[in-house]
């Protein structure tokens, strides 16, 4: 094991939600001298200016009727949120966003895990495959969006391939059919980022002890039991990180949707991000857009802390 590997294992432990209170606190400064507190100031300044303060401000604007330009704004309480509830496009966007986040999280990680398990074997092509499968993840999402938009046109490559195998029944207008356009976008995102999940799982697989695997095989454990009892506990931190990244990425999805369908046909693929953009920058409805963003913030917070709680325990018991 190289030093980089052992250090990254150390990170895995250091990053776990562990012991903040360490009794050796006093000893640290005795050994290395006081670390200047003002080292945090530059980062804190950028962070407060760009993230923290505007977010607080944004949360406040959600309770007004500000249009983003005029000098006047009135406090309107929860009116914008009530509007969201009665606006079919708004409710639709919330539903689409949750569907997208959920399906991307499940499918992308499942595919990523299977790819990782397939690549983490004795096969000769494993290095080439690792590079090939990760390639889509480095491509600009705007570019992959256009690429798949083309592949998914009615006479595009996907329908041609289906036709070649005689599967004409499966041919669709992938992005023009309101019933499946959302899933076509999900497929594009999964294609792009499955390799991303794979690489994180692969790093976790490095920690699986070969001798324990071998011993459990000799004891007669089948592949599923070996995976569940030997591999999965080692993967817990990778699973946590992967789920967190894909949930957050799914809830924020904008680029691919905007490029492939702009929320259409109709409003069938509008997500909270595209609707926020439309309301705030095309319809001049700033506060309504921000009210949506606040709802989205609550979703992100609930979902990510829920999964953190759920899996944190597993990671801790490792």
């Amino acid at each position, binding site marked *: 094991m190289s030093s*980089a*590997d052992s*250090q990254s294992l*150390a*990170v*895995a432990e250091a*990053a776990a939600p562990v012991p903040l209170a*360490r009794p050796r*606190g006093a000893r640290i400064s005795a050994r*290395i001298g006081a*670390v200047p507190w003002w080292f*945090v100031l530059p*980062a804190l300044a*950028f962070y407060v200016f*760009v*993230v*923290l*303060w*505007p*977010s607080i401000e*944004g949360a406040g*604007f959600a309770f007004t009727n500000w249009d983003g330009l005029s000098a006047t704004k009135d406090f309107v309480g929860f009116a914008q949120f009530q509007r969201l509830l009665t606006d079919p496009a708004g409710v639709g966007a919330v539903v689409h966003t949750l569907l997208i986040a959920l399906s991307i999280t499940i499918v992308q990680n499942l595919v990523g895990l299977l790819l990782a398990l*397939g690549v983490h074997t*004795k*096969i000769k*092509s*494993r290095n*080439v495959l*690792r590079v090939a*499968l990760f390639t*889509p993840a480095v*491509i*600009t*999402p*705007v*570019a*992959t969006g256009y*690429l*798949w938009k*083309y*592949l998914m046109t009615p006479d*595009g490559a996907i329908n041609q391939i289906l036709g070649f195998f005689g599967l004409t029944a499966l041919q669709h207008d992938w992005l023009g059919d309101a019933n499946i356009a959302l899933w076509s976008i999900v497929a594009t995102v999964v*294609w792009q980022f*499955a*390799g991303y999940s794979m*690489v*994180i799982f692969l790093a*976790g697989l490095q920690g699986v002890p070969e001798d324990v*695997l071998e011993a459990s095989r000799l004891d007669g454990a089948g592949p599923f039991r070996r995976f569940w009892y030997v591999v999965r506990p080692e993967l817990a*931190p*990778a699973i946590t*990180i992967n789920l967190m990244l894909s949930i957050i990425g799914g809830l924020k999805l*904008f680029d691919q949707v*905007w*490029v492939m369908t702009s929320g259409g046909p109709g409003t069938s693929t509008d997500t909270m991000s595209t609707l926020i953009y439309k309301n705030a920058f095309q319809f001049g409805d*700033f506060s309504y857009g921000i009210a949506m*963003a*606040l709802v*989205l913030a609550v979703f*992100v917070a609930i979902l990510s802390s829920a999964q953190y709680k759920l899996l944190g325990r597993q990671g801790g018991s490792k």
Partner: protein
Amino acid sequence: MNRYTWRTFVLEAVMVLVGVVFFLPVYVLINLALKKPDDQSSPLAPVTSITLQNFSDAWGQANLGQALLTSAFVTVFSVAIIVAISALAAYPLARVTKRWSRWLFFVFMIGLLLPFQLALIPLYTTIRDLGLLGNPVSLVLYYAGLQVPFSVFLYTGFIRAVPLDYEEAASIDGAGPMRSFFSVIFPLVRPITGTVVILNVLHVWNDFLTPLLYLSGSSQQTVPVALFSFVSQYVSQWNLVFAGLVITIAPILIAYFAMQKTIIKGFASGLKG
């Protein structure tokens, strides 16, 4: 499991097939960019007479040279600032065990949960009032702040895992905390700096929504936005569009293939949890 059995061979065949399917879209992209616009063959059929005309047309019409320069400027400066301020901030957060340090770390971590959409509009008005709309500097400012929480998270975890011995030795030799940070800690955490650089370069280079907002209407565009307006103009000329896509993803792809070992390793080492 140590020998190459027929089972391994079946697995190999399946995985290669999966790999081909995954790579097929990238093949179509490059294949189509090399075809003449009047070539009616299937997008899957290999190009027979290669043309580079699409590339020179796309380059000129989408103003890609300028876009690549703007993207490079924004990426280099944002990532340099992110690395500098995050590593610096992580040092006391990792080494000071007083209450303020724990609280501050927590405050930074809130940033991981806040969706950027919430801050999007208020920050937009601030940037507008500062007169920075249309100026790429606004993007550098934005990314430097936006990417701090994640980078601080990675650096803090990594520095916590570095044994105190090195700094202790340095302090016995008379080095102050500043000196310790720059000559001991920062070189030691180089692997995580790699991860931070890779993740942030990818994020900044590929981001679409922010430059769409902040640079809209100006002559300076980043690559994704230039692509977007280019494609909106030439939407049915896919050969031209794909040549544009190839040009813009080429720098990233070349860098990726040249350094794939480092990138995949660096990417995974900081992220696996």
